[in-house]
């Protein structure tokens, strides 16, 4: 059996772009689960300050990140000199996904890597969830 991926939660503290009820519900569910996890106040701030903590968060194998858009998260880590491992990272988008969806994905043992590579466009996403990994469909709800 493979190891449970690590969990990283971003509280997006310094802007109201992630719905507060979604953030709160996801954090509450993590706390209720009894799972071990890392939580940061704001990934953007850590990236801007090139916080060495970002490097620590990328180390140690597969990770699921509850934050915002996968493209933004990828380049926030990269900008701080702590690139995410493409095949070992799944980003859950609290800006557009429901709290229950994010929480379930975070606590699931299954990892659906979804860090974009190349020049992804909305038209690259599969037409339906059955056409590709669920994580891709979640990226683009349009």
């Amino acid at each position, binding site marked *: 059996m493979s190891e449970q991926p690590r969990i990283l939660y971003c509280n997006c503290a310094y802007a109201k772009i992630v719905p507060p009820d979604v953030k709160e519900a996801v954090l509450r569910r993590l706390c209720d689960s009894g799972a071990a996890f890392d939580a940061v106040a704001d990934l953007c701030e850590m990236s801007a300050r090139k916080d*060495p903590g970002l490097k620590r968060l990328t180390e140690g194998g597969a990770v699921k990140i509850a934050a915002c858009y996968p493209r933004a998260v990828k380049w926030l880590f990269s900008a701080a000199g702590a690139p995410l491992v493409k095949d070992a990272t799944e980003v859950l988008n609290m800006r557009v996904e429901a709290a229950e969806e994010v929480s379930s994905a975070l606590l699931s043992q299954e990892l659906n890597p979804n860090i974009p590579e190349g020049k992804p466009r909305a038209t690259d996403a599969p037409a339906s969830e059955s056409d590709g990994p669920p994580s891709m469909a979640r990226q683009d709800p349009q």
Partner: protein
Amino acid sequence: MSLLEENTLRVVLYEGEGATELPAEERFNILSALLDKGYTVTRAGTGGRVAPADRSAIVALGRFDNGRAPEAEDASGEVSVTFENIDGQAPADLAERIDALREETRTSKHGEWKPWFPVIDYDRCTNCMQCLSFCLFDVYGVDDDQQIEVRNNDNCKTNCPACSRVCPEAAIMFPKYKSGPINGDLVSDADMKREKMKVDISSLLGGDVYDMLRQRSERAKSRFSKERSSDKALNERKKCLTKLVQEGDIPPEVLMSLPSPDEIAKKAEEAAAKAQAALDAQKK
């Protein structure tokens, strides 16, 4: 701005061996209070994996057995480790206690600045230097390989996404922006069509976006100064700026703080020269 040379603080809410597991509600309240204060928190229990240790100072919080926090230190002596028994401490008090420990450990303080700055998607960026020649605030620079980079992110004007609007590849993101693709959402074909239109508009205006912004800002200021009624003047000023704000989603305070025409011309010339030098170096 960079924390590479500074020491940071990592708070660990410890609920493993030698400590009591907390009720979920208390765990949530403690985590919320610490996150709101800008701390990085790890919840560690008897199982599961978390990020490994590094040179960050650690404060381990817990309801430790016999009400006594253990005493321990890093064998290598490189990392400062402090244990804190949380019995009888409300989450808000605990957050204040951590503030005090942060000062004792001389670790960096977070949360004093809204992190608004451009993030470059290098999968899309063609290194065309449009952003470098556009930005008057020295946010952009080039590295030793003449690759565009965000050099002074704290120079960026909060809530202003203007440079992302001049990028022909939609490669500049502001993750805290309200809508896509600037917020990091995928780039659609419609977005790329808008990019083309944006360039055309710029050409129609004589290619000098700053001049247009400055002239409109000056007109608004002038109208404001001629008004006798401050309320009426304020309304008029708002009306003048609303269009610009809507067109480019540029905050009024950024427009009103644009430097004088001469300074703009000088800065724009310097930025364009930097961009041209980088482009020339790429060809070599």
